[in-house]
C-alpha cells in the first residue's frame, strides 16, 4: 500500500554514482538539479581559480571590468600601485552593488545607496556621517569590500579564487593548464581587444564545457557552415586527435599532427615551402626554438583546445570563452578576443573577420550550438527522461596514454570522449571533497596505461 503522506519525492542524489567511469554512463540530473547546482557554486566556483581577465584589459590605474565567480559579481580593478584586485561587488552596509558598469575607469567605488566609498583595493575610505551619525563608533578597517582570497596571473591571464586554501595558481594549472594558455602566445605577446560577445543560452554550463572536447558534433551540428564554405571540412574533421589530461579537471582535447606529419612539415620549411598548413596560422611559428621549448615536444604537435577547469575554453581563433552559470538551466557565454601585438594590419583584419563571423550569438558556426545545447539540457528535465543515463562511452578502453620523457603524457587517437569523461570524473571529486585539503590529498592523478 502506498503511503498517503507526500512529504517529498526528493531523494538525495549520490554524486559518486552520477558518473560511472567503467561504462561511461552519466546521470542526466547533474544538468538540471537545483541542489547539485547550488553545491557547484559553493564547491567548484567558490574554490576554483576563476578566470577574470587579461592584464591588457586593465591598462591604467582605476581601469576595471565586471566579471563573475559563479553567480557572485566581482569587480576586477587595477589600483594605483598597478596591482590587480578582485572585489566582491556588494557593499557591506546593505548589500548594494558599488559598481554597475561592465567596464570603465574610476577613482573609487562609491555606493549609490548611502555613499560609503571604497578605494581601488577595496578599503573603506569614507562613510557619510561617520562622526555625527555613527559617533565615530565604526571601525572602517573592518568594513571594506570583500576581496578574493588570492589573485594571481599566468602569462597575463588573471585568475582569482575565493578560497584561501587553494594551491598557488601555477600548481592549480599544472602543465596541462599552463600549456593550454601557452598556445595563446605562440605568435608572441598578446593584447585583448575591446568588446566581449556576450549571450545567454538555456543550457547547463557543463553541457557547454562537454562540447569543447566534442569533435564528433562538428559535421552534424555545423553542417550548414561547412556546406556554404565557411569552414574547411577537412580541417574541422581531423582524424588525428590529441588529448592531454591534467589534475583538477583540466584537459586539452583537439586536433594535432602526428610525429611523421611534423617531420614532413619541418622538412618543407627547410626547403622554403612551409606555408601555412591546416587552419592554424600559428603552425609556422611552432618551428621557432623558443615556441617549441615553451610548448614541449608533444605540445608542439597539438593545436590546443583546452578547458581550464571549470569553465574557461581556450579556442582556436584567438578567442577564449568563459561559461558563466546562470542557474542550472542557463549559461552566459563570454567570448574574449585577442591578437598578437606584432601583427600586420592585413593579418589583424583577417583575424578580426574570423572572430566576428565564426562564433558568438550571430556566428555562422556557433548559431547552431545554442539550439543543441538547450535541447540537451531539456532532456535532463522530464521526469522520465532524467532517469535515463547518457552515453559518454566513445573510445572507452580503446586507447592508451603514451608517455614522453618530457612528462607530456597524451592520448593520440581518433575522435573520442576521453576529455568529457575526465571532466565528469573530476567534477565528482570537486563535488565530494570536503575542502581544498581533501581535494589536494585525494584527487585523481591523470590516467596512465589503457583509458
Amino acid at each position, binding site marked *: 500500500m502506498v503511503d498517503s503522506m507526500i512529504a517529498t519525492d526528493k531523494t538525495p542524489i549520490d554524486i559518486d554514482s552520477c558518473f560511472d567511469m567503467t561504462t561511461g554512463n552519466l546521470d542526466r540530473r547533474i544538468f538540471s538539479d537545483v541542489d547539485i547546482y547550488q553545491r557547484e557554486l559553493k564547491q567548484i566556483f567558490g574554490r576554483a581559480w576563476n578566470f577574470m581577465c587579461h592584464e591588457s584589459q586593465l591598462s591604467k590605474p582605476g581601469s576595471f571590468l565586471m566579471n563573475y565567480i559563479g553567480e557572485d559579481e566581482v569587480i576586477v580593478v587595477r589600483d594605483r600601485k598597478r596591482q590587480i584586485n578582485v572585489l566582491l561587488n556588494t557593499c557591506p552596509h546593505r548589500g548594494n552593488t558599488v559598481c554597475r558598469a561592465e567596464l570603465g575607469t574610476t577613482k573609487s567605488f562609491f555606493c549609490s545607496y548611502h555613499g560609503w566609498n571604497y578605494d581601488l583595493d577595496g578599503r573603506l575610505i569614507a562613510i557619510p556621517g561617520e562622526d555625527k551619525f555613527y559617533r565615530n563608533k565604526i571601525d572602517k578597517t573592518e568594513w571594506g569590500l570583500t576581496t578574493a582570497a588570492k589573485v594571481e596571473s599566468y602569462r597575463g591571464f588573471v585568475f582569482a579564487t575565493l578560497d584561501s586554501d587553494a594551491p598557488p595558481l601555477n600548481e592549480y594549472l599544472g602543465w596541462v593548464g599552463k600549456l593550454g594558455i601557452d598556445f595563446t602566445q605562440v605568435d608572441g605577446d598578446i593584447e585583448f581587444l575591446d568588446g566581449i560577445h556576450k549571450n545567454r543560452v538555456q543550457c547547463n554550463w557543463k553541457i557547454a564545457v562537454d562540447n569543447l572536447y566534442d569533435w564528433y558534433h562538428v559535421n552534424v551540428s555545423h*553542417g550548414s557552415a561547412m556546406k556554404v564554405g565557411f569552414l574547411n571540412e577537412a580541417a574541422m574533421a581531423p582524424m588525428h586527435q590529441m588529448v592531454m589530461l591534467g589534475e583538477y579537471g583540466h584537459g586539452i582535447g583537439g586536433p594535432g599532427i602526428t610525429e611523421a606529419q611534423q617531420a614532413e612539415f619541418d622538412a618543407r620549411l627547410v626547403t622554403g615551402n612551409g606555408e601555412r598548413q591546416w587552419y592554424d596560422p600559428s603552425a609556422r611559428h611552432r618551428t621557432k626554438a623558443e615556441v617549441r621549448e615553451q610548448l614541449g615536444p608533444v605540445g608542439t604537435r597539438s593545436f590546443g583546445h583546452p578547458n581550464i577547469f571549470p569553465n574557461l575554453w581556450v579556442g582556436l581563433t584567438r578567442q577564449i570563452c568563459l561559461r558563466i552559470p546562470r542557474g542550472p538551466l542557463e549559461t552566459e557565454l563570454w567570448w574574449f578576443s585577442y591578437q598578437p601585438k606584432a601583427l600586420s594590419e592585413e593579418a589583424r583584419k583577417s583575424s578580426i573577420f574570423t572572430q566576428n563571423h565564426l562564433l558568438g550569438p550571430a556566428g555562422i558556426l556557433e548559431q547552431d550550438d545554442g539550439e543543441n545545447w*538547450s535541447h540537451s539540457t531539456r532532456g535532463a528535465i522530464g521526469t522520465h527522461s532524467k532517469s535515463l543515463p547518457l552515453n559518454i562511452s566513445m573510445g572507452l578502453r580503446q586507447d592508451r596514454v603514451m608517455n614522453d620523457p618530457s612528462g607530456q603524457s597524451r592520448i593520440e587517437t581518433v575522435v573520442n570522449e576521453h576529455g568529457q569523461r575526465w571532466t565528469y570524473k573530476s567534477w565528482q571529486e570537486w563535488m565530494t571533497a570536503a575542502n581544498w585539503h581533501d581535494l589536494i590529498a585525494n584527487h585523481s592523478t591523470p590516467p596512465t596505461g589503457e583509458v
Partner: protein
Amino acid sequence: MSSYQQLSTQERMLLKFEVEEFLFYEAELLDSRRFDEWLNLLADDIHYWMPIRRTTQAKEIELEFTKPGGMAFFDDDRNTLTMRVERLSVGRAWAEDPPSRTRRLITNLKIINVEGDKITVHNNFELYRTRLNSEEDTWIGRREDVLRRIEGGGFLLAQRHIFLEQTVILSQNMSSLF
C-alpha cells in the same frame, strides 16, 4: 545637392513615402522567408554592422558601443550575408530548422540626409521571433540605413548599422536578419 531640409514639404512627403515602401517591402521579404529576393535588394558594397553594446558609467558613455573595425556581432558584406542566407537552404542549419516565425515592425522613420543618389534614413525596429512550441525573442533597436536610388526607380540598401538595446544578448543565437 539639395539636402533633405531644403526640399519642399511635398518633395519630402514623396521621398518618405518611397523610402517607407522600400523598407516595408524589405521587412516583408524577411518575414516571409523570401531571403533570396532580399539579397537582391542589397548593394554590392553594402556594410551591415551591429556593434557590441556595453553598460557604462554616464561619464564614459562614449564607451557604450564598440568601434567600427573592431569586435561586433555583425560586420558583414554582401558575401557574408549571402553565406548567411545560403546556409538556411543547404540543410543542418539547426538554429533555423524548423524555421523561426518572425515579424518586423519598422517605425519612427526619419530621413536624415539626401546627397545625390544616397538617402540616409534612421528608423526604429522591433524584431519578434518565436520558435517551436514556446520560445520567444524580442530585439528592439535603431537602424542607420543608407539607401541608394537606382536607375529606373527603386533603391538598394547600401548600409545598415544596427544598434540594439541589449548588451548581453538574451537569446541563444541571432540567426535572424535585422
